C-alpha cells in the first residue's frame, strides 16, 4: 500500500524546515514579551498580538507540505518532522498529520479570537496581562501538540494549566477567583497523576516516545500495570478534557473568563486533553504500523487486546460524559455556562469516537476519523457560539437567556452567525457537525457489528446499542438546548431596555463571518477535510487498510493517493445524493435529530422542564468539596490524637518519682494547709452566692436558674477537696507526725504511701485545674446570659411601670427609682463582664476555646446594653438608694476575685509538684548521657539545668517530657528491638 510506505522523519540535520516546530512554539512567547514591553501603547500591543498569532498560523501552514505530502530531498523521501535540542528539558518536537491538524485549527482560532479581543477587551481592565498570557498559552498549547515525547508534552501541559489560569481569573471577582482556584487544583493534581503514568511508562520501557509500542508494552509490563498506566494517562489528560467526574472545573472556569478566552478554553484548549488521550490510547497502545495489511492482521491479534478493553471503557466514559453534559446544559440559564456544559458533552463525543477506534483495533479507522473531524468542527462552532454570546454580552451586559430577547433587530449578523453555529453543533445536514457526527454514528454501529469478535460471549454486545440510543438522545438534547438559546436570545419578545442596543463592532463581525463561512464550507464540502487532513492522519495507526471502514472512507483505489469518494457523506458535485441509500439514511438521521430536538423543546417548554432545580448532592462538585474538606480536616484530627498520646506518655513518665522525701512531705503539708484555706474560701464563695440567691429574688426564674448553675459550678471543686481531705488528709498528717518524731525510722511502706498520696493529690490537682478552667468559661457564658436576661427584664419592667404609671398614676419618683435600680444591676453586670473577660482568657490561653466568638458575643451584648442604658439614663439621675441593701456587684466581684486567687495558688502547687517530677526526668537524661559519653557532657548539663524558677520548670517539664521523654522512649525502644534482632540474627 503506497500510503503506508516507510517514511523518514525530517530532522534538522536534513533540512532547515525541521526547526519550524521549535520556532512556532517560540514565536508566541517572544510575542508575549514584546506585547508586555509595549503594553502601554494599546494599538501597537493589539497589532503585535494579532500579528504573532498570524505568524504562528502561517508557519504551521508551511509545515503542511513536508508533513502531509512529504518531500524529496537528495533522493530520499521524507515525511513528518522531528527535531530536538539536547540538554533542555522538554525541547523535543515531532509533527505528524494528527498534531498538525489540531495545531492548525488551534492557531487559526487564536488568530480570530485575538482580533475579536481587540473590541471585546477595550472596556476591560488589565488588558496587557490578558494579551501576554493569551500568547503564552498559545505557545505552550502548540508545544503540547507538537511534542515528540510524553516528557516534553508533560512540561508544556503543566505550563498550559498555569498560564491559562491567569485567563480564567481575569475578572478577579470572587466567582472568577474561586473558579481559578478550582481549575488550578485540577491542573496540579491531575498533572501529577499524569506524571506518575509517565514515570511508570519510562521505568518499564525505557522510553517516553509517542509512538505505537504495543509489542514493547506487552513484553515489558505485566498486564495489570498496562491498565494502571493507561488509567493514569486517561485521568491525567481527561481532567483537562473535561470527561465525566473530572469535569467539575469546566462549567465553573469557562464561563467566568472573558469571552475570547472562553472561546479558546472551550474551543481548543480542552482539545489538548483529548489529544493526550488519543496519543495515550490510540497511539501508544497500538502495534507498530505494519508494512502489509496481512501482517497487520496476523501479528497484531494479541496485541490489540489491551487497547480493545480500554476502548470499551472509553466508549462508556464518552457516552456518560455526553449525556451528562447535555442534561446539565438543558437546565442552565446562563448562556456561557450552558455552552460550557455543551463542551463537556461534545468532548464526550470525541472520547466516544476514540473509544470506538480503540475498541475496533485494526478496523477502527472510522472512529478515529470521526473524533479528529469532530475536534476540528467543535472548535469552529463552539468558538462561534461563544463569540456570538460574547457580542450580545458586550452590548447588553446580560448573560441570562431568559432575560434577553428579540435582538435580531439590533444585531442581525450575530443572529445569523449564531443560527449557523447552532445548526453546526446540532449536526443538521449541510453544516459541519453533520459530517463528523455521521462518522461517529457509523463507528458505534461498526463497534456493535464487530463486537462478536471481541466480547467474551461471542455474540454481538447489545449494550452498544444502548450506547447508540444515548447518542441519539444527546443529539436531541443538543439541538433542543442550543436552539432554545437562540430563540430566547434573538427571537423572543424584546424587553424594553434592550431597544436601543447598538450593533456589534466591526472586528467582531469580521470574525463571526469568517467562522460561519468555515462552518458552511466544511458542511457543504465535507470531503475536503477528509482528503486534506483526516485521511493522511489515519496512516501510521496500524489500521487494516482492507477493512470495511477503509472501504467506505476511501473508495479503495489507494495507489493513486488519497482520493476520497465517500458514499457516507454527500458530495454536491455528485448529483446522486438521493440515489445512494446510505447517504439518504444519514441525512434522515440528521433530520431526526432536528425533529426530536424540536419536539423535546416544545414539550419541555410547556411542562417547564428547563427550570427544574436539582438537589445539590446530585452534582459531582458537592462530593469533591466533601472529599477536599475531609482531607484538610484529617491532619487536625491526627494532631489531636498525637497530642493525646504524647500527654499519656508524659503522665506515664511522671509516675515513677523518687527523691528527697522530707521535702516532699513538707511540701505536701504546705499544700494541705493551702487546701484548707481554699476550703474556707470556697465556703465564703458559697455563702456569697447563696446571699446573691436571696438578693435577687425579684428577678425571674431563668435568672435564678443561671445563678444556681454558677453556684453549682463553684461548688463542684469544693466537693473534690472535701473528698480529698477525707481520705488523705489524716493519713498524711500522721505521716508527717511520724516523720517529725523520728525521721530515720521511716519504713519503706511509709515512703510508698507518701508517694502514692503525692500521686493521688497531684492527679486531683491536675484534674481540678482543668475543670476549673472549664468552669470559668461556662461561668462567663452564664454571666452573659444573665446580663441579657436582666436587660430584657429591665425593659419589660420599664414597660410595665409605664403602663402602671398611666393607669394607676403611681408617683414618678417611685418609677424612676425602680428604673435606676435596674440600671445599676445591668451596669454592674457589665463591669463584671469587662473585668472577667480578659482574665479568663489569660488563665486558659492554652485552651482551644474559641475566644474570638466569645469576644464578638461580648461586643454585641455590650452594644445592646449600652443602648438600653442610655435610654434609661435619659429618664433620671436622682434616685439611688433603693437597691443599696440588695447590691450584688461587690459580692459577685469578690467571688470572682477569690476564684482567681484560688486558680493562682493551684498553679504554684502544680509547679512545685512538677518540679519534683522534672527532677526524675533530668536524672534519667543525665544518667543516660553519662553512660553514653563518660561524663563528657557534665558541664553542659550543669549549664543547662541550674537556676530555673518555678514557672520555667513547669514550661521545661512540659517541653522536655513531650519532646525528649517521648523521643528517648522511642529511642530506647528501638535499641531494645535491635538488641532483640541482634540475638535473633546470631541464632
Amino acid at each position: 500500500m503506497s500510503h503506508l510506505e516507510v517514511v523518514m522523519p525530517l530532522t534538522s540535520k536534513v533540512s532547515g524546515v525541521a526547526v519550524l516546530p521549535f520556532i512556532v512554539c517560540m514565536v508566541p512567547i517572544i510575542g508575549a514579551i514584546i506585547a508586555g514591553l509595549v503594553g502601554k501603547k494599546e494599538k501597537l500591543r493589539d497589532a503585535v498580538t494579532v500579528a504573532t498569532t498570524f505568524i504562528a498560523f502561517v508557519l504551521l501552514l508551511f509545515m503542511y507540505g513536508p508533513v502531509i505530502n512529504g518531500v524529496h530531498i537528495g533522493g530520499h523521501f521524507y515525511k513528518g518532522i522531528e527535531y530536538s535540542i539536547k540538554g533542555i528539558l522538554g525541547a523535543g518536537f515531532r509533527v505528524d498529520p494528527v498534531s498538525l491538524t489540531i495545531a492548525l485549527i488551534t492557531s487559526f482560532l487564536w488568530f480570530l479570537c485575538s482580533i475579536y479581543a481587540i473590541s471585546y477587551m477595550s472596556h476591560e481592565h488589565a488588558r496587557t496581562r490578558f494579551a501576554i498570557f493569551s500568547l503564552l498559552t498559545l505557545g505552550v498549547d502548540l508545544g503540547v501538540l507538537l511534542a515528540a515525547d510524553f516528557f516534553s508534552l508533560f512540561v508544556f501541559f503543566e505550563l498550559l494549566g498555569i498560564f491559562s489560569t491567569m485567563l480564567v481569573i481575569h475578572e478577579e471577582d470572587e466567582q472568577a477567583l474561586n473558579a481559578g482556584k478550582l481549575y488550578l487544583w485540577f491542573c496540579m493534581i491531575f498533572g501529577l497523576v499524569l506524571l506518575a503514568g509517565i514515570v511508570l511508562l519510562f521505568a518499564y520501557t525505557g522510553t517516553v516516545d509517542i509512538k505505537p509500542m504495543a509489542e514493547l508494552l506487552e513484553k515489558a509490563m505485566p498486564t495489570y500495570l498496562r491498565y494502571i498506566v493507561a488509567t493514569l494517562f486517561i485521568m491525567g489528560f481527561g481532567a483537562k478534557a473535561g470527561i465525566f467526574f473530572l469535569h467539575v472545573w469546566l462549567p465553573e472556569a469557562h464561563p467566568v473568563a472573558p469571552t475570547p478566552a472562553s472561546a479558546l478554553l472551550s474551543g481548543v484548549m480542552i482539545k489538548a486533553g483529548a489529544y493526550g488521550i488519543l496519543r495515550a490510547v490510540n497511539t501508544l497502545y497500538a502495534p507498530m504500523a505494519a508494512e502489509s495489511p496481512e501482517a497487520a492482521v496476523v501479528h497484531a491479534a494479541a496485541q490489540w487486546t489491551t487497547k480493545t478493553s480500554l476502548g470499551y471503557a472509553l466508549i462508556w466514559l464518552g457516552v456518560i460524559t455526553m449525556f451528562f453534559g447535555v442534561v446539565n446544559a438543558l437546565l442552565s440559564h446562563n448562556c456561557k455556562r450552558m455552552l460550557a456544559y455543551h463542551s463537556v458533552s461534545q468532548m464526550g463525543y470525541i472520547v466516544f469516537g476514540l473509544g470506538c477506534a480503540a475498541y475496533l483495533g485494526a478496523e477502527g479507522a472510522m472512529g478515529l476519523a470521526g473524533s479528529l473531524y469532530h475536534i476540528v468542527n467543535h472548535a469552529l462552532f463552539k468558538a462561534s457560539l461563544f463569540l456570538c454570546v460574547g457580542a450580545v454580552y458586550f452590548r447588553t451586559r446580560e448573560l441570562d437567556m431568559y432575560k434577553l430577547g428579540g435582538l435580531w433587530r439590533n444585531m442581525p449578523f450575530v443572529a445569523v452567525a449564531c443560527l449557523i453555529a447552532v445548526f453546526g453543533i446540532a449536526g443538521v445536514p449541510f453544516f459541519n457537525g453533520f459530517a463528523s457526527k455521521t462518522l461517529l454514528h457509523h463507528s458505534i454501529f461498526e463497534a456493535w457489528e464487530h463486537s462478536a469478535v471481541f466480547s467474551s460471549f461471542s455474540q454481538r454486545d447489545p449494550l452498544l446499542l444502548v450506547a447508540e440510543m444515548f447518542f441519539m438522545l444527546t443529539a436531541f438534547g443538543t439541538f433542543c438546548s442550543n436552539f432554545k438559546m437562540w430563540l430566547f436570545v434573538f427571537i423572543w419578545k424584546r424587553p424594553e431596555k434592550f431597544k436601543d442596543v447598538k450593533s456589534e463592532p466591526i472586528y467582531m463581525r469580521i470574525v463571526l463571518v469568517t467562522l460561519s463561512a468555515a462552518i458552511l464550507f466544511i458542511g457543504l464540502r465535507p470531503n475536503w477535510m477528509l482528503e486534506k487532513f483526516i485521511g493522511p492522519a489515519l496512516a501510521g495507526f496500524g489500521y487494516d487498510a482492507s477493512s470495511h471502514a477503509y472501504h467506505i472512507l476511501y473508495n479503495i483505489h489507494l495507489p493513486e493517493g488519497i482520493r476520497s469518494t465517500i458514499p457516507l457523506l454527500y458530495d454536491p458535485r455528485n448529483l446522486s445524493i438521493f440515489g445512494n441509500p446510505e447517504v439518504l439514511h444519514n441525512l434522515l438521521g440528521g433530520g431526526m435529530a432536528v425533529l426530536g430536538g424540536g419536539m423535546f423543546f416544545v414539550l419541555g417548554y410547556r411542562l417547564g422542564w428547563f427550570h427544574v432545580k436539582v438537589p445539590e448532592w446530585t452534582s459531582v462538585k458537592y462530593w469533591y468539596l466533601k472529599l477536599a474538606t475531609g482531607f484538610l480536616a484529617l491532619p487536625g484530627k491526627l494532631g489531636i490524637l498525637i497530642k493525646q498520646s504524647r500527654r499519656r506518655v508524659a503522665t506515664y513518665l511522671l509516675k515513677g518519682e523518687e527523691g528527697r522525701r522530707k521535702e516532699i512531705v513538707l511540701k505536701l503539708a504546705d499544700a494541705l494547709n493551702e487546701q484548707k484555706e481554699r476550703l474556707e474560701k470556697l465556703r465564703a464563695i458559697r455563702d456569697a452566692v447563696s446571699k446573691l440567691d436571696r438578693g435577687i429574688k425579684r428577678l425571674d426564674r431563668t435568672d435564678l436558674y443561671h445563678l444556681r448553675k454558677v453556684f453549682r459550678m463553684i461548688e463542684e471543686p469544693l466537693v473534690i477537696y472535701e473528698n480529698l481531705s477525707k481520705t488523705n488528709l489524716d493519713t498524711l498528717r500522721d505521716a508527717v507526725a511520724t516523720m517529725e518524731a523520728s525521721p530515720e525510722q521511716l519504713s519503706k511502706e511509709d515512703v510508698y504511701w507518701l508517694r502514692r498520696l503525692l500521686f493521688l493529690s497531684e492527679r486531683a490537682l491536675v484534674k481540678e485545674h482543668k475543670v476549673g478552667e472549664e468552669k470559668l468559661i461556662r461561668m462567663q457564658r452564664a454571666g452573659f446570659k444573665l446580663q441579657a436576661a436582666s436587660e430584657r427584664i429591665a425593659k419589660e419592667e420599664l414597660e410595665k411601670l409605664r403602663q402602671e404609671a398611666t393607669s394607676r398614676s403611681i408617683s414618678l419618683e417611685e418609677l424612676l427609682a425602680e428604673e435606676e435600680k435596674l440600671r445599676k444591676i445591668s451596669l454592674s453586670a457589665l463591669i463584671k463582664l469587662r473585668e472577667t473577660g480578659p482574665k479568663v482568657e489569660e488563665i486558659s490561653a492554652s485552651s482551644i476555646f474559641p475566644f474570638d466568638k466569645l469576644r464578638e458575643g461580648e461586643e454585641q451584648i455590650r452594644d445592646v446594653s449600652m443602648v438600653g442604658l442610655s435610654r434609661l439614663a435619659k429618664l433620671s439621675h436622682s434616685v439611688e438608694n433603693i437597691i443599696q441593701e440588695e447590691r450584688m456587684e461587690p459580692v459577685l466581684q469578690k467571688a470572682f476575685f477569690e476564684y482567681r486567687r484560688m486558680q493562682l495558688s493551684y498553679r504554684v502547687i502544680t509547679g512545685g509538684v512538677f518540679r519534683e517530677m522534672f527532677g526524675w526526668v533530668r536524672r534519667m537524661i543525665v544518667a543516660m548521657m553519662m553512660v553514653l559519653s563518660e561524663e563528657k557532657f557534665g558541664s553542659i548539663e550543669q549549664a543547662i539545668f541550674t537556676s530555673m524558677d518555678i514557672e520555667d520548670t513547669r514550661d521545661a517539664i512540659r517541653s522536655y517530657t513531650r519532646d525528649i521523654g517521648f523521643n528517648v522512649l522511642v529511642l530506647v525502644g528501638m535499641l531494645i528491638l535491635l538488641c532483640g534482632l541482634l540475638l535473633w540474627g546470631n541464632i
Partner: protein
Amino acid sequence: MIVNDIRPLLAPMISILCAVLIFWRGGNAFLRRSFSISAAIVKWVVVFSMLQGSLAGKIYVTELIPFVPGISFLLRVDGLGMFFGMVSSTLWIITTVYAIGYMEGEHARKRFFAFFALCVSTTVGIAFAGNLFTLFVFYEMLTVCTYPLVIHEETPEAMRAGRKYLVYTLTGGSLILFSTALTFYLADTVTFAEPGILSISNGVGLLAAMFAMFMLGFGVKAAIMPLHGWLPSAMVAPTPVSALLHAVAVVKAGVFGITRIIYNIFGVSTLKDMALEGMDVASVLMWAALITIICASLMALMQDGLKKRLAYSTVSQLSYIVLGVSLLTPDGALGGIVHIANQAFMKITMFFVAGAIYKKTHKKNISEMHGIGHKMPLTMATFTIASLGMMGLPPTAGFISKWYLCLGALDAGKMVVVVILLLSSFLNAAYFLPIVYRAYFMKPQDGNLKTDEAHWTLLVPCVICALYVIALGLFADLPFVPLALARGAVTGFFGL
C-alpha cells in the same frame, strides 16, 4: 587518581580565618562586611578550582598528623564531597549578602557573623572529611557553632530552643562516636572507601545494630521522625540562620552523613548481603523516611506560622534524600543526592522570602498575608517558583529529583514509594498553593495595592535562587550543574 593538595584544607581554613578577623575587627561594619563577602568569594574560588579535576575523576587529599595510630586528620575531596562543598560554598555567598541586609539594625552582629563563618567552615569540613573521625569532629563543631546563632535573639524562647537543639544533637553525636569506635574495632580503619569498609563477615546482627546507631545519630540532624523535634523550635533564630540551617549546614550534614555511612562505610553490596541474611536495614530506613515524608507534610498543613510550615516541609523534604539513598539503586541515589542541592536552592528561596516579608511588614503568620503579592510581587513570584519546585513540577529543579527518585524506586521494585511520592506532591501542593493564592488573589487588608519591595540585598538573593531553581530544572543535563557532580559520585558508589 589521588593528588596531594593543600586546597581541601584551605577551604575550611579561609572561613575560620574570616571568623577570627571578625572577632578581631568586626565592630566596624565596613570591615565586617568586607571580611564576610571576600572570604565567601575566595572560598568559592578555591572550591571551584578543584571542580574540573574532580569531574575528571581526581581525588584531592590533605593528610595531617594522626590523632590515634591508624586514625589521622584526613581531608579528601571526592565526588560526593565536591558536590556538597560546591553547594554550600555557593549558597554561602548568597546568604551572606542576604544576612548583611537582614541583620541591619540587629544587636550582636559581630558574634553573629563570626559564628556564621565558623558554621560554613565546619560544613565544608564535613563535606571534605576523609574519614569518619574527621567527619565526627566537624559534625560536633558544627553543633557548637550553630548554638550562638540559634539563641541570637536571647529571648527565653530562643534560649529554650537552643537548649533543646543541644540536647538533641549532642545525644545523637555520642551515638556516632560510639559507632565510630566500633567501626574502627571491626575494620581497623575509618577512612571512607568506595565499596565500603565493612563486610558481612563481621556478623549480621552487630552490623545491623551499628547501622541503627549511625542512623539514629545522623538521623537527629536529618530530622527523621521522631527525632525532628528540635527543628521546628529552632525557627526562633533570625531568618538567614534558619535558611542556612535548613538549606545547607545542619540538616544537610545529617543526610550527608547518612549517605557517607551507607555508601562509604557499609557499601551497597554489604547492605544487600545483609538484606539477604534477613536484616534488611535499608528497607527499615526507607520506611522511616516514607512515614516522615507523609507525617511531616500533614503537620505542615496545620501550621499557620510561615517559618514553622517551612520547617515541617524541610523535615519532609529531607526524607526524600534519605529515601533516595536508602533505595540502594543508582537512580535512587542520584535522585537523593541531587535533591541535596535542589532542595537547598528551593528551600533557601522560601526562607529568604519569609524573612523579606517579616522585615518589610513584620508579619509572621500566613493568615495575615492577604495580598502580600500585590505589595511584593517579585518576592512572591520567587516563592511561587520555589513552591512549584517543591511539588516537583517541570521545569523546576524539584522535578529532576522526583523523576530520579521514582525511577530508582521502580528499579528497586517498590511501587509503594511512587504512590507515596505522588501523595507527598499533593500534600506539598496543599500547603504551598494556599499561600500563593492568598498572596496574589486576595485583596490586602488595608486595601493598599502599591508595590513596595524589600531592600535589594534581600530581594536579589531570592531572585538569584529562584532563577537557579528553574535553571537546574531546564538544563539538568549540562556539565557543571549538580546533577553531573552527583552522577560522578553515584558512578563511584555503584562501581558503574
